[in-house]
């Protein structure tokens, strides 16, 4: 691809990302900064609360179809999920569900860029994430829920489960997806388990290319705004398939074939779990 013609999606703010995915001129933000719905918990800890709590929710259209996007802003508190930011995502999904149940299909898109729970709001962040999971599972029966992980933060913690629950998951090479962030693994299991500064190792385990090659993500795109928008549009056109998180027997079988004492390398796993491999 011609680098000069490429417009980075990663470098966009959450608001710009949401605008770029929606059809031109259709972006309408809900509970934007002027709604002044801030974290009630951060000021108690002498942390300045941002007026949108780091989540942009927008209604609009995708190829003329009613849509809603929730985009996480990684520049604010690492895209972490607090009470308000989590509630904004959950509420958007719950309202989309309500419309779908009335027969008015709304296409939901999640732009995930998050370290997971905001520890300053710990249990209320975790509670919101459980509600996001509940909403995705319920909504997915009516309409595909499309997740995008563009990078550079990636998608970790409880929100990695949200990514895994999506009907379709789009990633870039720069993106990472994992339950435990490398720093947390190093803290909990030691540096011999995982050196959190070893970038190539981390990307080989949980980077977008690896997740796509092992069929844990559906689409791998370049960091290009048009390519991402195209991938989202295409995701809504794909024929229905069993969500990954419902393919329990297939993954139990795959897991039985792994010997933890002699585990495959990331490259070998691509052979074992490739998309061509029946799952």
């Amino acid at each position, binding site marked *: 691809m011609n680098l000069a013609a490429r417009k980075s999606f990663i470098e966009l703010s959450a608001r710009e990302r949401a605008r770029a995915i929606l059809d031109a001129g259709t972006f309408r933000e*809900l509970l934007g900064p002027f*709604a002044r*719905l801030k974290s*009630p918990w951060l000021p*108690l*800890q002498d942390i300045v609360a941002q007026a949108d709590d780091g989540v942009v929710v927008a*209604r609009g259209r995708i190829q003329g179809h009613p849509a809603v996007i929730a985009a996480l802003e990684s520049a604010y508190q690492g895209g972490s999920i607090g*009470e*308000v930011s989590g*509630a*904004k995502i959950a*509420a958007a999904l*719950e*309202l989309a569900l309500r419309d779908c149940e009335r027969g008015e299909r709304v296409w939901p898109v999640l732009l995930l860029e998050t370290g997971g*729970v905001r*520890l*300053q709001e*710990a*249990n*209320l*962040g*975790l*509670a919101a994430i*459980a*509600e996001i*999971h*509940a909403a995705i*599972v*319920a909504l997915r029966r009516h309409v595909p829920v499309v997740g995008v992980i563009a990078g550079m933060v990636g998608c970790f*913690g*409880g929100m*990695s*489960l949200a*990514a*895994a*629950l999506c009907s379709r998951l789009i990633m870039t090479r720069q993106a990472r*997806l*994992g339950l*435990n962030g490398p*720093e*947390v*693994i190093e*803290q909990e*299991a030691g540096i011999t*388990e995982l050196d959190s500064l070893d970038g190539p190792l981390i990307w080989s*385990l*949980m980077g977008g290319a*690896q997740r796509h090659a*092992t069929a*844990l993500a559906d689409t791998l795109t370049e960091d290009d705004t048009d390519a991402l928008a195209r991938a989202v549009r295409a995701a809504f056109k794909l024929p229905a398939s069993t969500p990954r*998180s*419902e393919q*329990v*027997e297939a*993954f*139990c079988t795959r*897991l039985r074939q792994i010997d*933890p004492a002699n*585990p495959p390398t990331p490259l070998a*796993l691509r052979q074992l779990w490739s998309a061509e491999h029946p799952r």
Partner: protein
Amino acid sequence: MSAAPSPNSRGLLWFEALTAQSGRVSDAPATLRSADAQIGAELTRCIAVVPDAGSRFPRARQGEVGLEEAWSLAREVRRAMAMPAVPRRALLAVVDVASQAYGRLEEMLGIHLACAAAADAYASARLAGHPVIALLVGRAMSGAFLAHGYQANRIVALDAPGVLVHAMSEEAAARVTRRTVEALRLLGERITPMAYDVRSFARLGLVDVLITGVNADAPQPQDVARVRSALEHAIAAARAAPADLSNRRHSPQARVSRAASIEVRTRMAAEWDVP
């Protein structure tokens, strides 16, 4: 042969107290227990994750939810959904989970998807009309709780030391927030969602029934009887209520502690359609 599970597993203790069975499943690891308990007039499928020093995956030997545990949870929940029963069989997650398993292999093999599959199964059971109850008897931590218990219609908890709910262990949370463990504890006393103890968690409106005066480590017959009675009521309440999680915002505590969660929903609904 697997070594015996750690005897101080509250999860196993309460699982056995309620089911009077070992709950071993032929095609699941010894860390996963699943069996029926008589709760009131009905058989309820109880599921627990317990420690096993001989577990195949070393990072999931001390009560963590690892890859095998999470996928086995998903399978056992879906099996219970397939059992013929009228009304639909209630599911009980006996929760004492230290954390998700932290490891390089776990990440590569997609522990995020494994935990999602377990959460998916519980949520799907709830949506299909199975009452899903979580019984918190020990630790309910982070991704492990999201996979095992947090999709329940009703959360019942023992009011006892060692019943803990949080997003991250104290040590890791201290490092990530650049604070000392002591400073974190002091903050938890002031900032309710940062606390670890179950009473603080209940103050957020996230516990439907808090059972006081029960010996969590050595339950007596009267303790077990009280828990059964609370579970019976929780199952009945779940059957009579919507299958979503909206009840978590309806309690008097939630109206105060989760006022922002409620306000976001009210105001977004008002802005949803073009005025």
